[in-house]
């Protein structure tokens, strides 16, 4: 029987395996990974360098086709048709380690790029939403500045605003705090967590940064392509 009271599952991976290279050079990076992330959950994925965190995130983010196993993201089956990959990407808010803002656009124009992509053709509403989002990341005053005029931490926050302005159902973040000092790192993670708790989306955050572990609903550890789950308050295991 279907349980309608349980929150929707945003990421569901089963026996997901992934390798780089061919023949003798093949390197198995993910080994039968299982993973579930629900709406309203803020999950941290931690593990040593080279353990496969970014690779896993790139599969979930529809940045590369899956090879083996099952992966559903926002209820869409992954890896079937290449054409729909960019449409799944639009459901997700990515936060990258590097901000990669366009230098020739102001902070607000950078944020608006997301809304333009989604076909929001009301210029006024785009502007309002972008300013709102910049306000949330504490950069309302910097809205008309170009990225080179902002500090690294400010740029990262603009990038976060760009990733989240369309209120995605799923947030993926790959070491979002790596280029930030402790204070702005904490601000960023608090912001992500707020989004999860107020908007009811889900987040999977890759990090080495132990200072932010306490924000997580659950911490998953990945080592050599295998995930080890940690029990959390809800009682169910995220790592399968």
């Amino acid at each position, binding site marked *: 029987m279907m349980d309608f009271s349980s929150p929707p599952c945003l990421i569901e991976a089963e026996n997901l395996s992934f390798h780089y290279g061919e023949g003798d050079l093949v390197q198995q990076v993910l080994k039968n990974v299982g993973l579930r992330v629900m709406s309203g959950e803020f999950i941290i994925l931690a593990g040593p360098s080279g353990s496969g965190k970014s690779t896993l995130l790139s599969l979930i983010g529809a940045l590369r086709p899956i090879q083996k196993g099952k992966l559903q993201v926002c209820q869409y089956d992954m890896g079937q048709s290449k054409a729909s990959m960019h449409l799944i990407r639009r459901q997700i808010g*990515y936060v990258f380690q590097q901000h990669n803002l366009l230098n020739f656009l102001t902070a607000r124009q950078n944020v608006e790029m997301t809304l333009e992509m989604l*076909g929001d*053709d009301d210029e006024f509403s785009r502007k309002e939403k972008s300013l709102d989002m910049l306000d949330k990341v504490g950069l309302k005053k910097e809205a008309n500045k170009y990225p080179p005029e902002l500090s690294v931490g400010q740029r990262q926050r603009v990038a976060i605003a760009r990733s989240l302005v369309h209120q995605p159902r799923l947030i993926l973040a790959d070491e979002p705090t790596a280029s930030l000092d402790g204070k702005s790192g904490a601000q960023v993670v608090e912001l992500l967590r707020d989004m999860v708790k107020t908007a009811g989306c889900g987040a999977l955050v890759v990090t080495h940064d132990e200072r932010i572990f306490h924000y997580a609903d659950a911490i998953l550890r990945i080592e050599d392509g295998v995930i080890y789950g940690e029990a959390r308050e809800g009682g169910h295991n995220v790592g399968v």
Partner: protein
Amino acid sequence: MRRQNSSPNTPTAIPAGYAFRLAWRQLSYQKVRFFTAVAGVVFACILVFMQIGFKTALFESATLLQRTMTGQIYLSDVQSEAIWRLVPFPRKTLYRALSVPDVQDVSAMYVGQAPWKNPVTGVNRTALILGIDPNVDVFPFEGLSEAAPKLRMRNVVLFDEFSRPEFGPVKQILAEKGEFPVEVAGRNLDVVGTYKMGITFSADGNLIVNDTTFFELFPAKSPQGVDVGIVKLAPGADIQQVQKELRDIMPVNIKVMTREEYVEDEKAYWNNITPIGYIFNFGVIMGLFVGLVIVYQVLYNDINNHMHEYATLKAMGYEDSYFVKVVLSSAVIFVVVGFFPSWLLCSALYKVVQASIFIEMNLSFEKALLTFCLISGMCFISALLAVRKLKVANPVDVFQ
């Protein structure tokens, strides 16, 4: 209707206007680079405009006589290459044309080149001399019909006002002193009037004399030899039909040409026998090539310098086609910003050049359109070459 937060099953095409705006913001952000690229396009435009202008002006000037002669069909010897390299054919061959029913009249034209002594400085310049029957309207040049009655006298000459200034202030002397003597081919002739023709490839100045005077100037030429035969048809005659009938009765060494064919014949000489056409086409290609390299460089660098940004946008859900639109928009911007000022600039340049080469330079809409198409093609190819680089902007790279 709002198309926001669409489901993944309903793809939303991003309006091309957004891509265009992004291209504009990207280009205008770095003004120096932008103007360098625009300067490249302007350079290409000017080269193309000028080369096309020179080429058409020179070909039009080369075929000036052919285009303005009266008559519908022209006869010349097959060995005749150009107006200044004519091989005469027998007069009686010309009269044979009269046997075709729709031929109304035939007349002969004689062409020669001889030195003209500047009446002020005494310096010789080579003039193209046309000998015509003074009773026949051969050319509709301005001023010629007024001056033509005087041409019936012997040893008189009509002078082309558009001859280069090195020929002397003939019109002025004529106005001040009336008819005056000049030396042509070592003989004394009286200048009795002027007309307006324009210089051709063959010479820097033109004269018209009657046929009798012509043979006195060129004693080596025989009055039995015709340089060009001009055939006038009866009103309403079928030119192609008469041409065919004339071909049937003419010896094989006679070319029977309509006006268009005669013009093409003269053009073909300058185009094939001389490297003129090639030189100008080469100029156009060089201009386009330099422009192509400059525009390609700028577009390529814009992509190359924004690899990570584009990859990030792709990871967010932007499609390749959006960036293709951005690059193509940049090309469109270069065309528009580069072409129209060049058009204006070249209208002025044409006038400057015209004043110094004494050949009419006319910046027609067709030339502008042709240049516009060539420059658009150039920018479009640059864009297509640069777009290949987009494939390298891979969204997985932003995770590394």
